[in-house]
C-alpha cells in the first residue's frame, strides 16, 4: 500500500502544473487542479473562538467558505496585507463524492508553472518528519526554490505548521543573481 501511494504521487507530480505564490520571500506551489479561483482580498466575517490562523468566512457567490491565513498557519510573522494580497480558493476532496472549498490568504500570486518530475526533488529532512509530511517536493524554478505543498494534508492538520526554509540553493541563486 505504501509503495503504491508513492508511485501515485510521483505520477501526479510528473504531470501537474502548479500555481506559485509567495509569503514574504518564500515561494510555494500548489497543484493547479486544486485551485478553483483567485479573488481579491475582501471583507471577512470573523469567526468566534477558532484557531488564530482561521481568518473567518466569506460569501463567495452564495457559498460561505472559510478563509485561512497561510502566514499564520505557517507560523510566519504577521504583516498588513499588501496590494497584491489575495485569496486563493482551493477545492479539496473530503468525503467520497464531496468537495469542499477553502480560501487561503497569500501575499501575492506569482504564476502557473509546468513542473516536470525531473525538476522536483524529494523534500529535505528539515526539522524531521512532520514538516516534510506537508510537502510533495521541492522544485527549483526560475524565481527560486519552491516548496510544492500537499494541500489536503495541510488542511487536515488543525494546528499551525512549521515548514522548512530551504536556505542552500535559494541563497545560492540569490548570490548568483547578485554576482
Amino acid at each position: 500500500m505504501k509503495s503504491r501511494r508513492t508511485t501515485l504521487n510521483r505520477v501526479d507530480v510528473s504531470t501537474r502544473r502548479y500555481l506559485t505564490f509567495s509569503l514574504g520571500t518564500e515561494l510555494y506551489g500548489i497543484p493547479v487542479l486544486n485551485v478553483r479561483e483567485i479573488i481579491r482580498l475582501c471583507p471577512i466575517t470573523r469567526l468566534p473562538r477558532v484557531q488564530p490562523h482561521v481568518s473567518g468566512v466569506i460569501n463567495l457567490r452564495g457559498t460561505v467558505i472559510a478563509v485561512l491565513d497561510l502566514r499564520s498557519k505557517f507560523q510566519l510573522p504577521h504583516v498588513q496585507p499588501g496590494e497584491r494580497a489575495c485569496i486563493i480558493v482551493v477545492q479539496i476532496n473530503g468525503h467520497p463524492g464531496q468537495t469542499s472549498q477553502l480560501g487561503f490568504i497569500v501575499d501575492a500570486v506569482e504564476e502557473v508553472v509546468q513542473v516536470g518530475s525531473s525538476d522536483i526533488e524529494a523534500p529535505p529532512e528539515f526539522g524531521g518528519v512532520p514538516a516534510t509530511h506537508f510537502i510533495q517536493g521541492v522544485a527549483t524554478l526560475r524565481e527560486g526554490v519552491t516548496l510544492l505543498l500537499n494541500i489536503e494534508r495541510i488542511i487536515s492538520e488543525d494546528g499551525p505548521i512549521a515548514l522548512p526554509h530551504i536556505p542552500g540553493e535559494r541563497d545560492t541563486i540569490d548570490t548568483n543573481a547578485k554576482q
Partner: protein
Amino acid sequence: MAEEMAFLMPDRDTGLLPLNGYLMDLEDMTGTGLSGAWAGGVTVVRRWIDEILDGTGKFSIESIERLTGWHDWMTRLVVALEEGEPEPELPQVWKATRTALATRSDGFKEGRRGQTVGAASNRESEPSIIPNLSDDLELLREFHSESLELLQSIEQGLLVLEENPADGKTIDSIFRAFHTFKGGAGFLHLDAMRDLAHELESLLDAVRRSELPINSFVIDLVLAGADSLNQFTAGIGQQLQNPKFHGSITVPTADLLRRLKSVLQDGVPRQTEVTPGLKQQPAGVQESQSSPETFSARLTLQVDASPQFVSPDMDIQESSVTGQVPEFQEESLGNLNPAQVKIRAPERTEETSAIGSRGGGISSFVKLDTAKLDNLVDLVGELVIAQSMVVQNPDVSKIASLPLARALRQLSRITTELQRNALSLRMVPVRGTFNKMFRLVRDLAVQEQKDVHLEMSGEDTELDRNIVEKLGDALIHMVRNSIDHGIEPPAERLSRGKPSQGTIRLSASHQRGGIVIRIEDDGRGLNRDTILAKALDGGWIMPNAVPSDSDIFSLIFLPGFSTAQRITGVSGRGVGMDVVKRNIEMLRGSIETRSELGEWTRFTILLPLTLAIIDGLLVGIGEERYVIPILSVRESFRPRRGMVTTVHGQGEIVCIRGKQIPILRLGEFLETPHASRSLEDGIIVVVESGDTTRGLFVDALIGKQEVVIKSLSETLRGQSLLVGAAVLADGWVGLILDVDTLVRLSNPERIPSRVAAFPNP
C-alpha cells in the same frame, strides 16, 4: 447489445454488467408471448452469462465467439419474426451445450455443495469480501447506492409476500433484485456477496417455478440473507466513507449459506409447511445438516450419471426426503389453507401488486447527486438576494420608467417562483422512512409475540430530505415503544374486549405551516396517575403543582424518567423517549402526547417544512452581527437597574417575573468587545433550549430576517457554537448561533466571574 459485445475483450470483465442488464430486458420480453425459439435463445445465453458470472467473471475468447454467434442467430430470429417467416432453428450445438452445461454446472454445484457442507464444520473463517477501493472506487460507490435500493425493495417485497404469498409479480421482482445484486457483486469480485446472492436467487427461482412453497420459513431465510447482504453493503459504505477502514469485510454467513443450500437441495419446507406467523424450524433442515454423508453419496451418483439419468435421480432424492418426514406431509396436506392452495397453482392476479403501491416499483425519477441539488438551491438563494439588490437599488428606483418597473416586477415574480421550485427539489416523500417501519413492526411483533398491524397514511407528504433522514431514528424509537409497552398481548386484548390484533397508525400531513407526523396505537395508553406519582416520588415536579395532562405526559420524555418507571413494571412507556425528543428538537420541531388510559396513545410531531430557511433575529454585538434562531427566543428586554444580581460562583442573574435567568455576555464569550458599557445600555435576549433558559446579552436588536442556512466548510466542523452561516441582505455573512450549545456549554461557572454591573440594591 451488439455494441456492448464489440467491446468485450478476452480475459476482461468489462461489459459484463451492461450485457447482463440487456439480457434481463430480453428476459422480460420473453414473458410477453414471444415464440419458443426466442425463449430458448434467451435461456441459452442466460446460462452462458450466469456461468461467467458464477465462474471467473471474465470473458474468454471462446465465450465471446459463442456470444457473437448467438447474436447473429438472434438477429436472424428477430428479422424472421418481423417478416413472419419461419423461425430459424436453435442450433443443435447450443442445445447440446445447454444440456452439457446444465449437467456440468449441476455436477459442479453438487460438488461445491458437498464440499462446502463437508468443509464447513472444520472451516473456522466466515466468508469475507475485500473491496478494491483503489481500482473500483467509482464502481463500488455506484454498487453501494444501487445495493441499498435493491435491498430496500427486496425487504418491501418480502413483507408484501408474507401477507400475500401468491403475488407472482413480487416474487419476480425480488428474484430480479437478487439477480442484479449477484451481477454487480460478481463484477466487483465480491465473491462472498455474490455467492450469497446466488443462493438466494436460486431459492427464489425455485419459488418462482413453484418448486418450493413460500412460507414464513423461506421468507425468514431470505430476510436473513438480505440482512447479511445489507451488512456487507454497510461495510462497503463505511469503507467508501472513510478509506482508513480499508480491509476485508466479514459477515457471518456460512451457516446461512448452508441452510440455503440444504433447503434448495432437499426442498424440505414443502413438507413442513407452516402457516405464516408461526415460526418454527423445519425438522428436516437440521437433519440434513447433520448428515453430510448423504450429500456426498448423492453427489457421486449425479456426477456419473449421463443426462438421461438425471431425472430418475431427482425422483430418488424426492422420495428419500419425503420418506423421512411422512407425518409432516399428511398433516400439512390436511391443513392446507386457501393461501397455500394458491401457491401450488399461482394465479396471476391483475390487481397492482402491493409492492408497486408501496413505492417499490418502477419510478420515473432522475438520480441526482445531492451536492448538485444543494448547490442549485444555494445559487437560487443568491439570485434572490441579487434580485432584491437590483430592485432596491436607489439609483434604479430613481428611474421613472413604466417598462422598467414592469420588467422588475416580472423579475421578482420569476425569482420567487424559481426559489420555491428549487426548494421543492429537496423535498422527498416520507414514504421511504415510513416503509422501514413495516419491517420493524413485523420483527418486533414476532419477538414480543404480539399481533400488530401497521397502517399508514399520507406517505406522499413531502419533507426536506435532511429532516426525513433524522426523523427515521425518532420514528423507530416510537414505534418500538408502542409495540413494547403500548400494544398488549393478544390474550390481554381479547379480555379487554379489543380485537386481538393491535393497530399502529402512522400518518403524515401538512398542517399549521409545517408537517404533522402522528403515531397512534390502540394499546393500553398512558397512566396519568402512575406517571404523576412517579414524578412526585422522584422529585421531578413540585408536590403542590397542578400539572395539566399534557404536562404530565411530557414527563415521559425526560431522560432517566422512563427507566425508573419501567422498573415498577407499570405502563412503562419511555424507552429512549428522551432521544426522540432531542432528535425532534434538533429538527426544530415539537412533540405532543395525548392518551386515554386503556384505549389509545397518540404522539403528534410537528416539524418545519425545511431546514434550509429559518427565521432569525439579527443582533449586534460590537461591530459584529449574529443571527439567533427566532424559534429559540422567548423574549427580549432592556434590563433596568436592580434586575441583575451577581451570585457568587454563578455569575450574573437577571430576575424577571420571579424567574432567575443566568446571563451570558455574548461579546465576551465570542471575543468581540461590547459597545454597551453596562447591561443597561444593551438588550437581554432570553433563549431556551429544552428546559434551560439563558439570557444572552447583546448590544442591539437589528431586526428579524428570514435567512437561508448555509453550512460552514468542513474545516470548521469541529465547532458547535454556530449552526451555520447566512448571507445577509447586504451580501455580508452573518453567523447563526447554536442556542443549544450556548445554553448547555456555557455554564456561568465556567466563565470567569466578573464584577457586578449593578451593585446589589
